[in-house]
């Protein structure tokens, strides 16, 4: 098979909201050697259903195979490969930054405002920042943040919904 172009894919699934479903999905990814970038699970408007959002960088045959294997899982009810053009994509990151002095503190506050983030915790020598947006936006903030010194990062992975 010829080498196909690799792209980022977002796969949104509706799954049974019960224990073990994330395990079944992640187990399958491991077993079939799919290297996914992120996975997030959360409740939906219906109590008995959950939404599982997966992102993967790969070529078309890999993604096609991943979708088929997901489809075989009995607890997976619906699968869609999202088109980034008409999808709202969000990720949330919590970033704990090193604060050396008063100048650093005011610089950080400025940057956070530009990125429409929020300061969620302040202590002597550190601040915690919340940034929401596309992964690119978060990456861009992180690049800036390294100049201050990053203490810790927690990212949720992508969640997404089709527009309209």
């Amino acid at each position, binding site marked *: 098979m010829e080498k196909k172009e690799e792209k980022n894919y977002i796969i949104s699934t509706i799954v049974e909201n019960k224990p073990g479903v994330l*395990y079944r999905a992640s187990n399958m990814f491991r077993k079939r050697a799919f290297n996914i970038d992120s996975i997030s699970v959360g409740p939906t408007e219906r109590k008995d259903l959950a939404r599982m959002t997966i992102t993967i960088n790969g070529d078309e045959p890999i993604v096609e195979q991943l979708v088929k294997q997901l489809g075989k899982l*009995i607890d997976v009810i619906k699968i869609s490969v999202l088109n980034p053009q008409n999808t709202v994509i969000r990720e949330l990151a919590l970033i704990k930054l090193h604060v050396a002095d008063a100048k650093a503190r005011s610089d950080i506050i400025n940057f956070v405002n530009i990125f429409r983030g929020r300061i969620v915790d302040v202590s002597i020598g550190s601040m915690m920042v919340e940034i929401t947006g596309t992964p690119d936006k978060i990456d861009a903030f992180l690049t800036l943040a390294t100049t201050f010194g990053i203490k810790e990062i927690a990212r949720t992975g992508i969640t997404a919904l089709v527009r309209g």
Partner: protein
Amino acid sequence: MVKMSGSHALIEALYKEKVDVIFGLPGGAIMPVYDVLRDSKIRHILVRHEQSAAHMAEGYARASGKVGVCMATSGPGATNLVTGIANAYMDSSPIIAITGQVPRAMIGKDAFQETDIIGITTPITKYNFQPRHASEIPETVKMAFQIASTGRPGPVVIDLPKDVQTEVADMDFPEKIEIRGYKPNISPHPLQIEKATELLTKAERPFILAGGGVIISNASQNLQAISELLLAPVATTFMGKGSFPENHPLSLGVIGMHGTLEANKSILEADVLLAVGTRFSDRSTGKIDEFCPDAKIIQIDIDPSEVGKNRAIDVPIVGDVGKTLIELHNSLSKRLEKKESSLWSKRIQQIKDELRDKVKINQEKDLVPQKVLKELREMLPIDAIVTTEVGQNQMWASLYFKVYKPRTFISSGGLGTMGFGFPAAIGVKVARPDVPVFDIAGDGSFTMTANSLATSVSENIPVTVVILNNSMLGMVAQWQRLFYNRRYSAVELGECPDFVKLAEAFGAQGFRVDSIDEFKKAVKQALESHVTTVIDVPIPPEENVFPMIPAGKGLREIIY
């Protein structure tokens, strides 16, 4: 609504699914179920090791087309089932494994004989259940049978905490059940049927590769009808052996690593390949890049994830093999007239004539596996069922024991489990007491589950084991001869055990034969006596299985 315990509900639900036999072995965490089972109409067959229970359930399932059921306690009982469950998963066999579990409050506390069997079996089952309330049991059993037996069949585990077995609840036994995340696509898309028809009617050298899916779907007759209409030769995969009669003029036998010369050579001449119920396993195709690179390929499979998984496909058709072959035949017969012969069918006959006796068989000795198996075939009725162990014995059986009917050849294909054949044969015999059942074995494999002799004898399930005994782990020894400079490493078994004495110790009859005549006599005795029989056939220790395609090579590089 009826009030009863979880154990009563389980047995009642199994009974409603028409289960007439369970293979198993009790233990602490499953005792409430065994207590109820004692008074039920379901027969229980006591094994001596749980692995055999799973293989017996699979043998039963594959011979009958029904779901096989096995049962074990928690912890080691459950983990001993794992090899058998994995085997059923790889070969798409419908079995249900019921395991005991520690009481709910103790789960996760590393209690005595606790093991996370749900975690362990998730990658090797189609689905698994752990009901947390007794009232879930009827619905769980209904779903388990539906999942195991429909679509692409496979194993399902039901793990029952001990206090769920004893809990009393109002039970509602559903007649039907809807599983919203499980809807196998049975009917092929008409457009794909049209595309396949187009390709096949224009094909000059159509070729059919038939896999285990043809047998599972009971589609042998539909396959034969298409083959004869197209005058397309049929090679089967190892798992497909029996899906097409091997004495049919268009049959080429089994393809792959130890397939026939005819099958492996002629498939490369095909211009259109119709692959039916096969997943293009590496053992069947050899190096995938060199497998029919120029042929157009049509693939029929009920499992969409198998279509295009290992090989790009020109016309994928997702659907039940039987239903799809009927629709394809209807569509083809509007465009094609049945003919007596074609250029291609003549070419196939020519290839067969040319290659038939190319593989040399030892002429100096009588007791060589090839002759033993041909002799066995002649002595057994056409509907006798044969199982095999794994290794050389299995590949000789594939090459030299010709099979004419589906579900009469049952072997461990995907997982390659040594020790499968004998317990599987016992399961087969339970499903089909009316036909002789033989296990073609090697000395290494048979020793792995020989303790099933106890089950065979004490439960009065007579089967016959033919041991092709080379005092070697023969297939590994063959690879060491061919690819490791004859450096034998851990393959010499010696003349141990004495299989006649072993058989007799369990109350079976044992024969050691020293000539083909003695072998025939022993087989005759086994067929007439209806008792468990072990026939020990000494064969030359360094006999190779040929033809062979070395691992990772293309079909062209076949050696013989």
